[in-house]
């Protein structure tokens, strides 16, 4: 089994999905158990893989026993192992939360959730550009279905934008992959990277066009500035556990940018090295600015969190845009933090909304809540973490990001990150004081929330503290991951040169 560990992050949710989806209705307990067990198993697998990747060796799994570049290979390095772990951690929180009742609001929740995980994990693992497309589609379609879970006008309407844009994006993806295949003759990213070294000059333009088309697609998924518009409403209207899981969806786009451009357009690519860099850098800053404004404007807690997600996107992409191992390491730390925390905040928002009853998560006066103190404490922790204030992980992440900037980058990054942080601070203090302090007198509103919800939310938010306590080991890992990423020849050697090219 151990030699198959790499494929398990795809296979486990796939099988769980099959078990869960075979029967559409009924068997609530069974489904919950299967789903939670599968997700926990996924977490164990992810830990195992992280352990494996921590050795510093790049390993791969040749599906169908067809060696790269001919077959599809799953590639495990520090980065992909980290992304898997983050996803699994997030998923455990979300799925347990969903067992508190959200899963019953429509059909097939758990099955779709598992398949969404399958798509995300596949995207993180695959070393093949077209296979990445396939997993993107898996995770997108699952996300469409989950977004609609429970129905409602707002969800439908935001879905229309989300779906149509992503469909157009998928077409662009195919065009980009097509051009790259036409220009290089391969789909395996490592192979493509190795072919960059002796790319004929007459093909350079084609490769640029293909790569930049892909950048548009990844930018769309990651929600970079001119392409982010689908995000706020979609995230704000999604059911809580789904929105929580969505916290990792933008990271898939960011991951893809990080992976594709650092590998294929690494130092071996000559003229084409870092061709995405200026675009990512400047647009990420613009994203930060827009997201900061969005945070100030949001009149609903969910929308506010959605814009906070966008701030994290801007910050992370700025890290990508700096394209140095320091920045990559910093952004990976920040990525763990922001994914788990924004996920937890979406869960928390749902809990607050449930207890407040009619006003929901809108930032207006409401009646005091039955479990107001506990929720307030959770909100305070989450807000501190997400706003980047000490003593939680956000502060570390932000400090790492700022510290990683060099020279003139500082002026822009520091200004924008700090201003966005201030905007978050103002908005969150306003939101918190409205939700918890500015209440009508009168009866307490809401029923006590299910334990599952508390657990799911606390699971995610508590990660912030762990990230602080274990900041050293975590950052050691991210630093090593960043170094690995900065050295594409590792992957190329493992997959292409050492594998010998034949089975």
């Amino acid at each position: 089994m151990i030699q198959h560990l790499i494929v398990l992050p795809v296979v486990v949710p796939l099988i769980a999905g099959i078990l869960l989806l075979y029967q559409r209705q009924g068997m609530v307990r069974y489904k919950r158990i299967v789903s939670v067990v599968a997700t926990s198993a996924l977490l164990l697998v992810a830990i195992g893989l992280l352990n494996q990747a921590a050795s510093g060796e790049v390993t791969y799994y040749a599906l169908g026993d067809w060696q790269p570049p001919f077959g599809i290979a799953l590639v495990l390095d520090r980065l992909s192992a980290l992304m898997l772990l983050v996803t699994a951690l997030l998923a455990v929180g979300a799925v347990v939360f969903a067992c508190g009742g959200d899963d019953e609001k429509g059909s097939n929740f758990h099955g779709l959730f598992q398949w969404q995980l399958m798509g995300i994990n596949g995207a993180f693992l695959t070393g093949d550009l077209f296979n990445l497309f396939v997993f993107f589609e898996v995770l997108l379609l699952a996300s469409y279905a989950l977004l609609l879970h429970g129905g409602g006008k707002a969800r439908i309407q935001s879905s229309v934008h989300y779906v149509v844009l992503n469909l157009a994006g998928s077409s662009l993806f195919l065009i980009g992959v097509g051009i790259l295949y036409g220009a290089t003759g391969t789909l395996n990213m490592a192979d493509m990277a190795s072919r960059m070294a002796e790319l004929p000059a007459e093909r350079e333009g084609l490769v640029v066009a293909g790569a930049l088309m892909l950048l548009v697609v990844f930018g769309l998924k990651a929600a970079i500035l001119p392409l982010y518009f689908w995000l706020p409403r979609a995230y704000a209207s999604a059911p809580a556990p789904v929105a929580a899981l969505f916290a990792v969806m933008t990271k898939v786009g960011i991951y893809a940018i990080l992976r594709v451009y650092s590998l294929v357009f690494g130092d071996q690519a000559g003229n084409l090295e870092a061709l995405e860099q200026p675009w990512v850098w400047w647009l990420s800053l613009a994203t930060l600015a827009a997201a900061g404004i969005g945070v100030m404007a949001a009149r609903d807690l969910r929308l506010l969190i959605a814009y906070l997600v966008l701030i994290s996107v801007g910050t992370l992409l700025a890290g990508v845009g700096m394209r140095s191992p320091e920045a990559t390491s910093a952004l990976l730390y920040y990525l763990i933090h922001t994914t788990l925390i924004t996920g937890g905040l979406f869960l928390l928002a749902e809990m607050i909304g449930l207890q407040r009853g009619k006003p929901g998560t809108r930032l207006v006066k409401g009646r005091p809540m039955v479990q107001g103190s506990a929720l307030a404490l959770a909100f305070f922790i989450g807000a501190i973490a997400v706003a980047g204030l000490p003593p939680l992980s956000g502060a570390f992440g932000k400090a790492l990001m700022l510290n990683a900037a060099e020279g003139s980058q500082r002026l822009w990054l520091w200004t924008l990150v700090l201003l966005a942080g201030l905007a978050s601070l103002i908005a969150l203090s306003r939101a918190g004081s409205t939700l918890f302090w500015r209440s009508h007198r009168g009866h307490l509103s809401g029923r006590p929330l299910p334990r599952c919800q508390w657990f799911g939310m606390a699971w995610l938010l508590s990660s912030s503290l762990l990230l602080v306590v274990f900041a050293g080991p975590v950052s050691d890992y991210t630093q090593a991951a960043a170094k690995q990423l900065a050295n594409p020849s590792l992957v190329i050697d493992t997959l292409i040169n050492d594998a010998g090219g034949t089975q």
Partner: protein
Amino acid sequence: MTLLWIALLPLLGVLVPALNAQRSRMVCSLATALLPAIALLLTLMQIPALLEGEALRFAVGWLPELNLELALRLDGLSLLFNILIMGIGLLILLYAHFYLASDEPVGRFYAFLMLFMASMVGISMSDNLILLWLFWELTSLSSFLLIGFWSHQSDARKGARMALTVTGAGGLALLAGLLLLGDMAGSFSMGDVLASSDRIIADSRYPLMLGLVLLGAFTKSAQFPFHFWLPHAMAAPTPVSAYLHSATMVKAGIFLMARLHPAIADSELWTVVVSLVGTATLLYGAWFALFKTDLKGILAFSTVSHLGLITVLLGIGSPMAVLAALFHILNHATFKAALFMSAGIIDHETGTRELKQLGGLKKAMPVTALLTTLAAAAMAGVPLFNGFLSKEMFFTETLKTPVLGGLSWLLPALATLGGILSVAYSLRLVHAVFFKPAREAPPKSPHEPPHLMRLPVEILVVLCVVIGLLPALTATHLLDLATQAVLQRPLDFKLAIWHGVNLPLMMSVAALLIGTVLYWRHRDMRLFTRQFESVDARRVFERFVVAIGYRAEQFLAAFEGNSLQRYMTLLLSAAFVMGLIGLVQVTDLTGAAGNQPIDGVVILGAVMLIFGGIATAATHRYRLISLLMLSIVGLFVALTFARFSAPDLALTQLSVEVVTMILLMLALFFLPQKTPQESSPLRNVRDILLAGSLGLVIASLNYAVLTRETLSISSFFVENSKPGGGGYNVVNVILVDFRGFDTLGEITVLALAGLAIFKLLNRLRLFIPHSDGEGRVWSPDRYPAILTSVSMTILPLALLVSAFIFLRGHNQPGGGFIAGLITAVALILLYMARGVEWAQERLDFPFQPVAIMGVAVATLTGLGSWLFGYPFLTSSFGYFTLPVVGEFELATALLFDLGVYLAVVGATLMILANLGKVTTAHRPVPEQTEKDAETSSNPTSKEPR
């Protein structure tokens, strides 16, 4: 290790009240006090070591990437502050025990207070810039909680938010400043930083860094013009004000300036900026303190003023000035905390803090009156009190400052003015509250507080007096250590009450005299001041925040606009720009391979496709016609695939095309039949240009690739298809073997589409049109008889063809996907021809399990290879011989393809049949919650498939 405990104990102390919140208040208070008391004791136990000149340090690694260590130091400065923080903290605890009403959540209050104390201790002991910043921001947060403690009051909420915003913003600036500073010094370790003054000041980024750091310090210490949050923070319970706004938090900024003094203060820029800001603050605060009518307001502004004083001293920066600053820090903490607590007692006992409701309290509260008077005297700088000593040192230093050159008289003059105002407001405070008769009756009839509540005040006042009388005995060692820490070298000084008759003494005397007169005449000046009072900082701030929110909303509405058309335009424009950038780098559009000769059939295909495409777009307002045009494209795309040697694709495209048509028509039934003319001609032109440009870019890229030699890995597939994959049809072998993983994902997508669509069809409210787009009533003939009989004939044939296509796929064009679609389409034909009711009776299997079963079969086939020790999805095949039948091939790929087949049939039917059924009695029922489904024992006949 002791250092770690000193820092850690207050932090652990946060948990104590939280855990003891349910017990009696006495237990809770005592338990809370325990840990900080130990920490204070531990701190004091370090004094001997410090006096011997030991450097007390503690460090463990934390986040090496950020150069962050859990590094603590205890030097004189930390010692001074630790004593203030924990000493006064304990007194505050005692005071708060009595101050808070019995129904208030004291546990929470203590927890917040301890959190604050811990973060202050952290600031004071940090030996690492980043660590310092962490604690710094933590004080902002905990003070936010404390100020907002009475959250039901709007004042408290707003005051808390304002304080958080201002100090938080300053904290962010400070982070930037400290990062810069660390970068300039080459280390974040305090020791290194303090030793790199030359490097730092020589660095070109020094002014920027200084600005950022001072921004942090000034906002925290309420320096002009960032002072405005402090008076509004008075909405906090008085123990909080006494603690945060006299002794600790506001001193954090001062502490920072003192701490970093050796590293960054040795420049003119520092002196000018810091002393100017300090002076402005000194005067501004004093002036407004004189006219406030709220007891705590007076104290708040006086605090602002005194903080300004300390800042001026730090700005001057001479050794003696530093000494004076440190001394005044100590003194101010004692008398101001005492005054705040007295104010709290008065408020507590009378129910008001408004001066006009107070007066003549010396009768009811003689002891409090005495204590307050003494503390106020210290504040005013009356001789024999500690305030006098430090203030006189301040005057002395202002006289020595060299920076302002010709204007060197200005600073002493302004300092004297500050002294005058300080005397006046101190006098006013005491006189108005205790001696003057009240104009209105207070809400409660006042009496002395419980003795223990007064005890902290008494202790502090005694300290004021003792230090005032015996400075050399009480404060010298402490100040000596602190000054050494700030100056990084010993300073020879002597504290004394009497320095002889000199200019500073004159200034003090003048301040006392003129201040008294000023109080006498302060009513006149109040009229003058009134005109400024309309500017209420909080209201301005609130309005500012609201305005920003509003502007942000407006901006977003305009910028984002909730318009898909805009988003699409942006997406396509981005794609266009990106493609174009690549395209312009393609030197020679026509590559070496060039064009193949053209023939008539290809021209026909191109004409059909081009025409079909344009016609689809051109007729889009007449939707059905547009669909028919789309059909041309679909058909000719299939023919194109056939023409260019891709039979599998041709088959797939054909079947998908038909299914798509059916699907689009099923949906179109529920949509308007025509699209209204909405777009302006300009917009149309713009859209055509955009679409056309991107089309052109894509065509050019396509052409560029097509005219270049192909360099593909594909020969591997051709060579290994039969020997390795057991099939002659390379495309199929790629699909089920070489890249079977893609196919597995693909059928998952298909099944997901079915599931997602099922969700969409749930609780769907339908607009069922009663007539077509032209208003014609539908034909009454639901199931044309001729169609029904033909569909009967076609079904078995179609199934046979489907089986044929499926089985031969591995070697000839075909395969599970196409076979599945054929089956599904044939079944859909039945639905069309015979109706749902009829078909439902005969097709009584649910679709979802079929689709999922398909995925399961494919997955299990893939997993099977594990049994033989091969990776997931490894295929195998073999040739077998049976009697009669002869030799035949069996391949696991066929099983995999069976999975594909099932998934396609199931998913396609889930999509089409469910969509078709929405108009019938068999429509997907409004989704029950799973609970309902479990409890209801009889599944209804309307169960959706």
